[in-house]
């Protein structure tokens, strides 16, 4: 009887999970995925890409769309340059963050600005795939026809206050993150889609220089 109930609960959970992400099925065993994704991450030393960021304001039924260019270099260097509809540059180089808006440029020590550190570390770790292996999130992996979806749910209280969950869409073609969805507790969410991705091209360190 217990086995029947347990199987029923498992089936129900699988159905609910599948309904949550149409086109995706929950992987009961994600070991193969983890091995595959880790191997791909190991081989990826640089990423160069365009991106579109869509900030969805659920209660306002509105969204803010911005576009720009993205560069990543192992281990922990990221450059995000927003070009439209505003200009904004953010460089993350280890524990240093450099931001430049239309008025000022600022070097921020991630250690001195915890909120900034947490938000930006999440972006870097999501691109790297490190977020899947870290201890900040519990993970469920879903498989679709052309991509995997990794659902990351924060474990610690601090991270929970910032994000309800973060979803990474990983393209099966190159096993690279093609989309990051950051869901906030308020119901608002931001989707960053990476297009025209180029892996392992030569990127100068100067791109990530924090002055």
């Amino acid at each position, binding site marked *: 009887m217990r086995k029947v109930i347990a199987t029923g609960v498992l089936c129900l959970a699988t159905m609910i999970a599948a309904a949550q992400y149409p086109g995706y099925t929950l992987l009961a065993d994600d070991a193969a995925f983890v091995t595959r994704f880790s191997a791909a991450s190991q081989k990826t030393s640089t990423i160069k890409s365009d991106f579109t960021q869509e900030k969805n304001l659920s209660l*306002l039924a509105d969204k803010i769309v911005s576009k720009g260019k993205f560069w990543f270099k192992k281990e922990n260097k990221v450059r995000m340059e927003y070009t439209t509809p505003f200009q904004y540059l953010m460089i993350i180089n280890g524990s240093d963050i450099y931001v430049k808006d239309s*008025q000022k440029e600022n070097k921020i020590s991630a250690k001195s600005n915890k909120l900034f550190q947490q938000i930006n570390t999440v*972006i870097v770790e999501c691109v790297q795939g490190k977020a899947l292996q870290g201890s900040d999130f519990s993970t469920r992996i879903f498989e679709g026809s052309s991509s995997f979806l990794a659902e990351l749910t924060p474990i610690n209280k601090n991270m929970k206050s910032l994000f309800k969950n973060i979803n990474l869409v990983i393209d099966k073609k190159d096993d690279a993150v093609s989309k990051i969805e950051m869901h906030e507790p308020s119901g608002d969410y931001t989707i960053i889609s990476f297009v025209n991705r180029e892996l392992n091209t030569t990127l100068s360190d100067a791109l990530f220089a924090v002055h």
Partner: protein
Amino acid sequence: MRCLLFISCLLGVMACSSAYQKMQKLNGDANCIESFSPSFSRALYSTKVNVVGKHLSGLLIIKTMPDSSIRMVFTNEAGFSFFDFGFRGDDFTVYHIVEQMDRKAVVKTLRKDFELILMQHIDEVSSNMLKDGREYYHVFQRKGDYYYYITDSACSKLIRMERWSRRKKVMEAIAVDYMMGIPDSIGIKHNNFDFTIELKRIYDHADQ
């Protein structure tokens, strides 16, 4: 550059401010101010905040909702929301605010600053008008706060806005270059501490 010019003008004007007690009291229709009331159907602003030596930038979206309330959401450029406020006359709602900003004094200051800009307290009951040289001060009172809208004699131009406590000026603001009822630039400067907000309208997908 234009924004810098506005802020410079604002600073110049502040230096010349005089005590309201000495002004001439007038009978007049203070509600001419309503013609300057902004109509934020939907507007996105590039936002710069300077507070006690710290600089913060982001995006502010202001939108009028179907129930005629005004919602205001401030996010950083990467899309993370700092606060989400709702204004409707004397009513104010905090829909969301990050823990780091969730301080009574911060919320109260932002609420009152934006209530001045959004002209949420314009009514006949509390209105008054004063004259100081060529400037006309349209005054609206809410509890211990005084909201001033300063115009020319014909009430054809809104020169600046100010908020006073019972004794002293707390802050002043400008809203300029209106297009379809939406100001292109907004500047806020506090008197009692180093705090400025600059908003410059940007046009995104929704405006195209």
